[in-house]
Structure formats: C-alpha cells, structure tokens
C-alpha cells in the first residue's frame, strides 16, 4: 500500500512536470515568417525613451523607429538632413529649423515643430531623470531646468521657440557651428503626444516616425518590428520586418546563428572570432566603430602632473606594441589607434591617420630614452586601473604593462590594478581618487571630431577624467565652434587635438571594431558608423 503511494508521487511529479512544460508547447515560433529578419538583441538597460537610452541595444530600436532631423550616411558617417527641410543660422548661435511637411508618426499624428520642442524639453528637465539630458546642455535655459544644485526653476528650455507648425528656433548658450551635426542622435528624436499623455502605454509599445513601427513587444524577451506604412523617407525597409530576440550570452546567439534560428548577430563572442569566417562561410564583417580605448592620467594633482612627465607619458605610448596586441589578443577586432577620434569619421569629419605620428608608433629604444629624460616613472612604479567586471580589460592592460616593463627592464614597474565593479571604477574617477594611470574609453554620440574632444579634454568638461586644463586648447575649441565653414572648423579641432598630444593627456591605444555575422538566409548586411546593422537594407532570401 505504501509502496503504491510513493509510486503515485513520482508519477504525479512527472505528470505535473510534463503538464507544466507542455503548456507552452503550442503556438508558432514567431520567427519563421517569410521575409522577416531575425536578429539577436540585448535587453535595453533603460526604458525606451529617446533621451534616456545611452546604450546600443535600446539605441538599435530607436534608430529603427525614429526619423530624426538629420541622419548619418551608413558608409561615410556624413550628416544629412532627414526630417529637416533646412537648418539655418546666421550667427552660429541661433538656429532656425524647418521640419518637412506631410510627415506623420506611425499612429497618424502629424509631425510638427512641437513634436521636437516638447520632446527636447522633456529630455532636459532634471526631474524626468533622463540620462541623455546633458545633450541639451548647450541650449539656453538648461541651467534653469537642470541646475547642478537644488530644484529646477523652469519646466521648459528658454532657448527653444516654436515659430509656426513646422518651424522652430534654437538658441545656444554660445556659438557652435557644428551643433546641427548632432541632431541625428537619438536623444533629439521627436515624440508623439501619447508619450506625454499615456507614458506607460507608450513604453509598452513605443510609437515613432521611422522606417519601422513596433508590432509587438514582450519586454525582456523579444520585439517585432514591421515596416511603417506612414513612413515617407528614403530608407524604406527592403524586408517585411525585423524580429529582435533577447540573448544574454553571445555564445548562445552564435550557436543559434549556426543552427539557423537567427539571421543576424552583431556581437560575436570573442573566442569565436577566429573561426567565424569559416563557420559562417564568409558572412562576416569586421570594421572600425566609433569607439576608442585610451589610458589617461590624473593631471590636476600628484606626481603625474609635474612638468617633464609629458615625456614619460610619450615614452609609455611608444613602449606599446599596438599592432601585436590587436592581433594577438583581439584577432584583429581592434585597430591600432593613430589619433583620438575614430576612422568612422572619415577625413572630412576629423579622423587623421598620422596626427599622433611617432608618439603612437612602437619604438622601444626611443621610449626608454624619453621615460628616462622625463625623470622616470614616479617612484619607479605605475599602475593601470580598470574595471574587472566586464569587457575583459585585464588582457590588454597586462599586455601593455608587459611592454612597458620590457622596455624599462623592470618586471614590477607597471602592474594592472583591477577595480571590482564598473560603478566603483567610475566613482573613483569622478571623485578624483585615482593616483596613477587608468583606462578610459569613449563611444561617440555623433560622428564628428568635436564629440571626441570637447567632452573629454575641455577645462571642466563633463567627462574630462584627467582634469587636464589648457587655455590654448579651450580657445581653439571656441574658435572652431564659431567657425561657419565646417572644413576650417575641423582643421581647428585638429589643431586643438595636437595640443592634447603635446601633453600626451591620453595615450590612444586602439579603435574597437564592430563585428557582425549573418546566416545564408539573408544578404546585403552592413554596419553603420555606430556598428549597428543597417536593418532597412537587409534582404531576406525566399
């Protein structure tokens, strides 16, 4: 009797297990529809609000569902008018923006000047806690809606004025000729009325004015996008939609790509790069992205700020064999750096192949001499701090220390200094607790040299982690900002960049490459300047 009872237990448990799991058994896989591109995705870190999305996964969606005032050519990175009819200025400080007529959001609401002005005001107001709010910092009145201390004293930016249904003006706090270039960035996207009236409903199913519209969104799992029938721009999708599936582990996504369960994967696992070309039968691309990696130093106090140390920093730069590191550690998915920007900018927007010159070229004998001339490493030692929790920085930091040690003939001169978490690492930097070198990276917001210099090296700038300050540099930036001719402005920015190299504020290491692989099921896959696949152009084989 008892035996029979325990047997029923086991049988019951199995039945429950089978029953529970069978619940999900029906229904289609949602991805095998003809003409739909199935792509790997990561769960966005923030709600899908344009002014609150700082990382690439949420950005991917926003790029697909929004048509901004400007867009960046996927090949050259050049900014062109998109939803803007014209953007004009006479004094490089007040811009008149005309929005194209007849454009609508995917829910039929017409796109007007207010769609932009309301969105920007929302993004700038501190109480909305939008992480991209600093993008509006150059617009007049930002100090009122987001004061560094205390509560906001205004709800809207005084520099934004609606002229008529399709025209508005923007007044900046200072002259900035290249300002319109950033208008292709997602933080400047227009928003429909629903965003303000039914915020939660909007986040459950975002509405935009771009080539795609959100069809369904299961948060944390997948999102289905279909071509937006109301879209009137030039980037009409060449497929019947995109299915974004969330993966936590790029290795799993890679397995699914090989098994034919997804079509596009834009974050190939590092350990698979070597085999990817053969595994995927050539359906693989690796090209520089708008991301660079540098090491920088605390320059406002302590040993590294003393005169003569710039020679030491230059020496350290020359002690690094960039080519070997990019090949040995990264299998060519990094490119040795020759300037402080990124090759995706192209020469037109300020990238240079030789601006750093000899200082970024491996030369052990000269390196040793320079370090000695400058007085040697402070106390004969240096550390390179990095965050140990993600992106495996340990390998390259150790490799760089190894190069420096070899040049100096001292095993213990340079050591890596792992900091537990990224958050801790960042707060040590912002609080000025760093005493020796630390890693710094920059991911561009828009393809323009200005974005690689002003936020990082201008006196008191938001991400000036080294706290470097140079009056000549600041003056050159100002001069460049008020220069109406873009070519001349770019030249001025490069002159400023040279000053950064004179002091070797940051040692450029390498540019990160964007890599992507795709299945035999799709064709015409390419990456844009932000290393995001150009989804509108992907064709699905039938």
């Amino acid at each position, binding site marked *: 009797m008892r035996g029979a009872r325990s047997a029923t237990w086991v049988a019951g448990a199995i039945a429950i297990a089978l029953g529970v799991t069978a619940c999900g058994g029906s229904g289609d896989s949602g991805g095998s529809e003809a003409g739909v591109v199935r792509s790997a995705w990561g769960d966005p870190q923030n709600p899908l609000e344009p002014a609150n999305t700082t990382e690439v996964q949420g950005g991917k969606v926003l790029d697909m569902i929004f048509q901004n005032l400007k867009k960046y050519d996927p090949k050259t990175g050049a900014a062109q008018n998109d939803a803007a009819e014209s953007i004009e200025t006479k004094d490089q400080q007040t811009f008149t923006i005309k929005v194209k007529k007849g454009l609508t959001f995917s829910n039929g609401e017409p796109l007007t000047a207010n769609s932009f002005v309301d969105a920007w005001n929302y993004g700038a107001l501190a109480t909305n806690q939008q992480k991209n709010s600093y993008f509006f910092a150059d617009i007049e009145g930002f100090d009122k809606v987001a004061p560094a201390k205390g509560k906001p004293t205004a709800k809207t930016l005084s520099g934004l004025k609606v002229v008529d249904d399709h025209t508005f003006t923007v007044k900046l706090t200072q002259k900035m000729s290249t300002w319109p270039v950033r208008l292709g960035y997602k933080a400047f996207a227009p928003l429909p009325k629903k965003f303000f009236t039914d915020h939660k409903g909007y986040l459950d199913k975002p509405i935009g004015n771009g080539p795609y519209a959100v069809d369904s969104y299961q948060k944390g799992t997948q999102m289905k996008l279909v071509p937006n029938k109301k879209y009137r721009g030039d980037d009409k999708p060449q497929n019947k939609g995109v299915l974004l599936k969330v*993966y936590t582990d790029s290795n799993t996504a890679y397995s699914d790509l090989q098994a034919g369960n997804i079509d596009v994967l834009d974050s190939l696992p590092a350990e698979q790069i070597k085999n990817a070309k053969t595994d995927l039968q050539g359906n693989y691309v690796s090209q520089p992205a708008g991301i660079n990696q540098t090491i920088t130093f605390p320059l406002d106090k302590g040993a590294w700020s003393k005169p003569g140390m710039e020679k030491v920093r230059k020496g350290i730069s020359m002690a690094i064999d960039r080519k070997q590191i990019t090949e040995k550690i990264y299998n060519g998915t990094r490119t040795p750096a020759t300037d402080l920007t990124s090759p995706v900018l192209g020469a037109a927007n300020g990238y240079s192949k030789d601006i750093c010159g000899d200082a970024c070229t491996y030369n052990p004998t000269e390196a040793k001499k320079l370090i000695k001339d400058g007085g040697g490493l402070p106390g004969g030692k240096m550390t390179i701090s990095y965050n140990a929790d993600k992106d495996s920085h340990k390998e390259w930091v150790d490799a760089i220390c190894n190069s420096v040690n070899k040049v100096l003939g001292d095993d213990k001169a340079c050591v890596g200094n792992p900091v537990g978490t990224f958050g801790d690492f960042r707060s040590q930097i912002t609080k000025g607790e760093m005493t020796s070198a630390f890693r710094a990276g920059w991911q561009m917001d828009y393809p323009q040299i200005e974005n690689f210099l002003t936020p990082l090296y201008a006196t008191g700038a938001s991400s000036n982690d080294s706290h470097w300050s140079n009056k000549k540099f600041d003056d050159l930036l100002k001069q460049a900002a008020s220069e109406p001719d873009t070519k001349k402005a770019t030249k001025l920015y490069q002159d400023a960049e040279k000053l950064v190299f004179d002091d070797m504020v940051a040692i450029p290491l390498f540019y990160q490459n964007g890599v992507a692989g795709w299945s035999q099921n799709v064709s015409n896959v390419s990456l844009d300047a932000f290393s995001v696949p150009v989804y509108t152009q992907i064709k699905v084989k039938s």
Partner: protein
Amino acid sequence: MGRYVVRRLLQMVPVFIGTTFLIFVMVYALGDPVAAMFGDRTPDPATAAQIRESLHLNDPLWSQYLQYMAGIFQGDFGTAFNGRPVIELMGDAFPNTIQLTLVAFVIELVVGVALGVVAGMRRGRLIDTGVLVLTLFVISIPTFVTGYLLQYFVGVKWGALPPSVSTEVRFEELILPGIVLAGVSLAYVARLTRTSIAENIRSDYIRTATAKGLPRRRVISVHLLRNSLIPVVTFLGTDIGGLMAGAIVTERIFNLQGVGYQLYQGILRQNAPTVVGFVTVLVVVFLAANLLVDLLYAVLDPRIRYA
C-alpha cells in the same frame, strides 16, 4: 507535529531577516550604482541627484532596508533600473525557472535513483564500477563545459534538439538544459543511493522480508528503497533551492529567461532592487524546502517523531 511546524516557522523569521539584510548590505556595498548607469561618461549632476533621490540612496542604509522591507510586505519589490517593477520580472522569470527545475528534478530523481539502485544491488561488479566512473566524470566537468558541448553537438551539429530555448519555452527545448542542470546533482543522487542501498541490503529486515517469501520486486521497492531514501531525500530537498538559484550558468547558455538570467543581469548592471528581490524569494524557497524535507523524514521513517 503541529507545534513542531509552528516552532520551525517562527525560527524562519530571524533567518529571513538576517539573510535579506546581509544580501541588502552586500549589494549596496558594491558602490554607487548611479555612476555605472551612464557608461564611460560622467553623469549630469542634476540628473544623477534626481536618480539618487528617487532610489533613496541618500538615506542611511538601515532606513533604506526598512523602506525596502515595508515595500515587500505590501507586495512591492521596487522597480528595476529599466523601469519595470521587479514583481513583473518575477512573474516572467519564475514560471520559466520552475519548469526547468521540474524537468531537471525529474531527470535527477528517476535516472539518479535508478543508477544508484542498480549499482548498489550489484556492488563491486562491472556495472557498479561503470556508474562510479561515469558519475565521477559528471562531477568533475564544470556545467558550462557540458552545456556548451551538448549545445554544439546535439543542438547545432546533429540538430537533434533545439540549441536554445525560445520565447514560448517548449518542452523539447528544456530537455538539454534540464540534463545539464541535473547532471551534477544526478551524480550525487546516484552515489548516495548506491551507498545507502549497498548498506541496507545486508540488514536484518531485508533478510526477514526475503525469508517471508515476498517477491523480490516488493522487497526492493518497499522495504529496501524506502529505507535507503532518507539521505537522498535530504539532498533532493535542499537541491530544489539550489537548482532554482544555481541555474545562472545553464540559463545563460540556453538563453532561458528565468531567475538566473535576471540575477545575472541584475548583478552585472548593479541593479540592487532586482538582486535583492529575487534573492529574498529564493531565501523563502530554501526555507520552505528545508522544512518540507524534515517533515518528509517522518513519513519515510515512522521511528522519527516530531513533538
């Protein structure tokens, strides 16, 4: 029995408070999460101040803990940094993880006990050695190795089973992760059962039962197995909690969006509400499983009484 249960339930209260407070302190000791939200960029001071205030980061730790606990008892586990309530994440994650745990548990129970019985009955023979070597293998290979290997060969190369779990979480997709998750515990279950069986098979009551002329099947299933399962049940009971919490690696490899996935993301993004919320629920699961195991003893062995 009733008094025993009440006493145990009362004991759980300090354990619950202690563990949740510890995990709370540990997560918040990781440093300021706001700095990490902005990537390599220094946050805009006004925005950062607003976020800190809304997360109560300016209050002292004990006050944050009290506010958090007060929320939990009203069914509010806080909001994850991506704007979704943690309770909603739990609603998505726990059904997936429970399904995987059940599959793994059944595999572990059926295969583990069967292997253990066979090996224990034929102690010292070839099949016994075979089971011992096999389980040794399973124990010594880390989960992520078996996971990726099975995924590649069974899922990609041979295409016999799906290599990852889709959004619908179908049964056949759970077999591979179930096997991987069950693997190590299965080996322990087999070994525990084997030892226990081998010991009890020579005991007096088995000889008596056999002498009574009972059929061999009944001797094994009722007399032998039931008495040999006590250590196994202890292990299985605590293992349920382990399976649910320990699926981080397996869930990642097979892309199952369950508890492990949410915990992993929570830790990676220093998302305190997610981590503390999920761990709190897991603590309750562990406590309940432990109590259940202790009560099961009495069912299995009538000599054990609780008063």
